[in-house]
């Protein structure tokens, strides 16, 4: 079944650790996105990609990095986690045509202690 998957759903990790949040989609979409959402706040775009080997930074500055080696895979990496990175991270994908619907994953809730 076509879907978008995020793992892990929840992650508690110590300061200074390197982490990778996984996002995969089987919808055949070219565009993929990462949003960050703090409780009670709006979703902020932190990264997006138009396709393989394409990555762009979003509106909110983030210390995370992304890669797009395969169409279906768009992982997000934090080289050294800090408490300020504690947040919910949402991955989404959409077709290439402008104004197409974005499909979201379940999200990863990250806590850095």
């Amino acid at each position, binding site marked *: 079944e076509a879907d978008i998957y995020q793992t892990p759903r929840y992650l508690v990790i110590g300061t200074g650790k390197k982490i990778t949040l996984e996002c995969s989609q089987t919808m055949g979409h070219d565009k993929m*996105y990462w*949003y960050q959402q703090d409780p*009670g*706040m*709006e*979703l*902020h*775009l932190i990264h*997006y990609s*138009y396709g393989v080997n394409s990555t*762009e930074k*979003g*509106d909110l500055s983030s210390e995370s990095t992304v890669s797009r080696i395969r169409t279906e895979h768009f992982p997000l990496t934090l080289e050294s986690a800090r408490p300020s990175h504690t947040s919910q991270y*949402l991955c*989404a994908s959409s077709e290439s045509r*402008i*104004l197409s*619907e*974005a*499909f*979201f*994953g*379940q*999200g990863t809730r990250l806590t850095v202690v």
Partner: protein
Amino acid sequence: AQRVTQPEKLLSVFKGAPVELKCNYSYSGSPELFWYVQYSRQRLQLLLRHISRESIKGFTADLNKGETSFHLKKPFAQEEDSAMYYCALIGNSGYALNFGKGTSLLVTP
């Protein structure tokens, strides 16, 4: 710069009452507006989009360029409408959605 404002964090109405969730935007060009919804324990999903001019689950939204608003309305709220609602905008670049902070709608019996 583009910005989406949802002034109400929480809106509580009785079942059968009309509901209006407010959304205002600022954008210098011609934006496209969307409403996304997140039901309890479910993922964020599209409810409706401005260009479709459709009614989904009894909800409608009209773009008012003069007031730069895109309010979501439903004449008779149902308990299953309780959810988090996000207004979102795509500008001329068309590359990604820009979201508001969301409004939590609670429909009580």
